[in-house]
């Protein structure tokens, strides 16, 4: 479809656009290109509209009953206005032409601009032919193909029943599922016009066991971004066995003795160490704030020579996989560190403008109330040449971190994360279970202490909270050895 021609207008067009109300299709081109033209005519250097529609549902089984089914329906839009390197972001629930126009007008006014006066020159914004990943990749039927409310309940009750047969000393058991269907449309004054449908689903267990004063709690979650039938194919028997086994081992575990230890970190969710200790510090958001020690280290060695790491949005069905980012840029595969040398940063549009690093298809946001920011997607340490046994064999006394909890990194590069399931390593062998451990350190120091990577790369679904809200990500790594790290305990 051709853009309407808006050259020198005698007055602002008073057009009544009839965009399709329940689908972001080509009919949105006319109103959005008009608004983008007005924004540029007002003096903005760049304008972007982000439209979003969400159909979300969560379901929870507690013990042997479904205790919650929560649908959420949401629509909204955000407009971002750049003037030089400064920008503002305005969001609204009102997707009518007048609602979007009001949001644009507010954004312009914040930047000291106003809608063009009658007889102003209004540049034509030629949006590209709608780049529709939902159509190209057959996603239109995804929502309808997902599990019904009845099926959600049936699967979760069966799964929770399985957990009851596997676990002992159960205080409470929960199986939780959510489906987050999101349709997005991005239109910007550089001609970007792209639509996508995302389907993020996750299901997992939360088990709390108690025996007198002894307690243990274990969580396990798996995720999908491209399989509508994900829930009905969930292998809950395997996950129930794993969760029950971990909970029973941790129930009588001793508290870890604090100190400095060599540590082996398990694959899959063990990758949270790289996510927290390094990944966040490679986001251009951190360069802008001058809160990363790696800002001027591109091309320099920042990690052990045995370490290579990626961030990408392409791995099939991984939890951080996206066909385009929330700024309409196709997904990329970004080499972060190669043999210890820093190769690239993770950049969104604003980060690119402000730091000079090229965009990497990493502009992400939780929803329309957030401006996109540089965020990780599927982030992992590449596999190495060692076997897992070789990692353990290299340690006389240390700690094996089998299951990690969450973590965070502060403004000075200090990171920390919790260990949900740990074991003492003595003379290369796993001995007793340990609980209550927190790993703490400095990003610049720890990356040079990851000295051994095994050959068993595994990925795990996670959630990452930062400046643009909570987004779905993958963390991952093979088993790795950290030569020394501070372990907080009792």
């Amino acid at each position, binding site marked *: 479809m051709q853009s309407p021609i808006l050259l020198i207008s005698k007055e602002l067009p008073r057009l009544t656009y009839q965009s399709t109300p329940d689908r972001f299709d080509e009919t949105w081109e006319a109103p959005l290109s008009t608004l983008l033209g007005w924004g540029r005519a007002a003096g903005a250097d760049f304008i972007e509209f982000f439209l979003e529609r969400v159909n979300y549902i969560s379901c*929870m089984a*507690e013990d042997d009953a*479904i*205790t919650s*089914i*929560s*649908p*959420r*329906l*949401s*629509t*909204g839009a955000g407009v971002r206005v750049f003037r030089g*390197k*400064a*920008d*503002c*972001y305005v*969001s*609204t*629930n*009102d997707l009518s032409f007048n609602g979007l126009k009001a949001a644009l007008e*507010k954004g312009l006014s*914040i*930047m*000291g601009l106003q809608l063009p006066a009658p007889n102003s020159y209004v540049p034509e914004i030629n949006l590209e032919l709608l780049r529709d990943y939902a159509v190209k990749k057959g996603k239109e039927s995804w929502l309808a193909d997902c599990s019904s*409310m*009845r099926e959600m309940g049936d699967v979760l009750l069966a799964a929770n029943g399985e957990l009851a047969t596997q676990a002992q000393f159960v*205080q*409470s058991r929960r199986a939780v599922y959510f489906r987050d269907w999101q349709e997005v449309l991005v239109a910007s004054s550089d001609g970007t016009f792209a639509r996508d449908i995302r389907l993020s689903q996750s299901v997992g267990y939360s088990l*709390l066991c108690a025996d007198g004063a002894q*307690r*243990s*709690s274990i969580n396990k979650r798996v995720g999908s971004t491209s399989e509508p039938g994900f829930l009905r194919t969930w292998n809950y028997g395997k996950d129930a066995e794993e969760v029950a086994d971990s909970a029973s081992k941790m129930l009588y575990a001793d508290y870890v003795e*604090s*100190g400095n230890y060599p540590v082996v970190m398990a694959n899959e969710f063990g990758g949270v160490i790289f996510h927290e200790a390094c990944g966040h510090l490679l986001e251009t958001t951190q360069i*802008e*704030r*001058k*809160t990363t020690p790696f800002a001027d280290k591109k091309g320099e060695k920042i990690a052990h020579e045995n370490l290579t790491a990626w961030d990408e949005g392409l791995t099939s069905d991984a939890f951080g996989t996206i066909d385009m980012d929330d700024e309409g840029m196709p997904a990329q595969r970004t080499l972060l560190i190669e043999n210890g040398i820093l190769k690239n940063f993770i950049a969104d549009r604003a980060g690119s403008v402000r730091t000079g690093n090229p965009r990497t298809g990493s502009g992400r946001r939780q929803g329309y*109330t957030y*401006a996109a920011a540089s965020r990780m997607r599927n982030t992992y340490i590449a596999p190495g040449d060692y076997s897992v046994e070789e990692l353990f064999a290299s340690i006389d006394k240390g700690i094996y971190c089998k299951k990690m*909890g*969450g973590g*965070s990194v*502060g*403004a*000075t*590069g*200090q990171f*920390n*994360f*919790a260990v949900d399931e740990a074991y003492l390593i003595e003379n290369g062998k796993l001995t007793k279970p340990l609980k*209550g451990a*927190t790993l*703490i350190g*400095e990003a610049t120091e720890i990356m040079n202490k990851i000295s051994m990577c095994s050959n068993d790369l595994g990925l795990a679904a996670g959630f990452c909270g930062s400046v643009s809200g909570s987004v779905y990500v993958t963390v991952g790594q093979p088993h790795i050895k950290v030569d020394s790290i*501070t372990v*907080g*305990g*009792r």
Partner: protein
Amino acid sequence: MPKIDDIASYAKDTAHKLGIKKYDIYGSAIDETSVQVDQGEPQQMKASQRSSVTVRVWNDEHSVGVTSTTDVDPIGLELALKTAHEASFFGVKENVPEFSPEATDPTAPHAEAKNPQAPVSKLLETLVEAEKELLAAHPAIKGVPYNGLAQRDIDRFYLNSEGAVRNEGHSFASLYLYTKTEEEGRKPRSAGAFRVSHGLDELDINGCLKEAAEKTISHLNYDKVKTGKYRVVFSPEAILSLIGAFSNLFNAQSILDNQSLSTPESLGTQIASPLLCLCDDALHPENVGAETFDGEGTPTRRVALITNGVLSGFLHSSGTAKRLNAQPTGHANMGSKITVSPHFYHIFAGESAEQDYSLDTADNVILIDDLSALHAGVQATQGSFSLPFDGWLVQNGKRTSVESATVAGDIREVLKSVIYVEKELEFTGSGVAPRVWVDELSITGE
């Protein structure tokens, strides 16, 4: 957002059309503006107007379904009511929620606390000036990477099909300033401060600036602390964070779900030192965001949780109150499963301590100013925590910043190991509390 009377009218007509006889709706609308700056230049400015409602319907089999939506027009409400009705057939069969018995009781007097929002240019000017003053406070302060000045109007309402209607509105302004230092041969340090008030004119900007600067400067001279057991003093902010992380102790829904460190029988038992008292007080005069009713329309109130160390109350929704033979306390959040959460904690001294303590004369004491990473380092259902903190080692009254350390323990032991609760209360945004002294906590340093 449409007016509450219009929403009530849409809902009534649509429910009638769909054959829904019993429903209630909780909703809110937010209008907010915020700015950030970097080295005197605007960094990002944000504005948002959004609204959302949660509708809850009972079907003819008396089970309940819920849906939330941001489409608060007749079409959006109809879709939400239909979806909630569909979900209701999968709702719980036991302990089905009902309307709060207090949904039409009078609420505490509420002065409409709406202040006009200042223009963005005024916000920017204020924040740029604050950043400038903070950068000038000490040569080591090279940036204020985390800063923000925001103002927000919130309107909220509750209504049900039996005629209950409540609504109220508030305005807030808030400021946070977090510095970062750089000195040759020294590690970067960071500290900050936060303030909130009913409006920009009332915001204590100088206080925020002064606190951020003083804290930052106090962390410039840092050292490692030896691993071991220490007497620890929690700042008001730190003790409120820690209590908040273990709020399942007082949460009746968590107790009924076996997700709490307490049981119904814990009520009346000694869970803390007799020196300690704790209330949740939504209506506390210092609570800028005071809400007079909860998500079920129940009036909020002051609830004693720990009295002289004895567990003296739980936080309830109408459903948990019914199941535990208690009164609702106004702590419910509307949802498919009603959840319960605190409003505003108030910690204060209980019985008199045998001895008074002072940081001016303290020796080998750790003063914890701020706890980090509570989402990761707290095992709420196990009672344990292991958390990084910002703070100081106090030796003969002199404070030296602690470089990098964690504090670990069990909340039940912490509460029982309180040896002193100071008199002077401090407002933190999430509650009011004094400094609280605790014996024998594990500190991991070097």
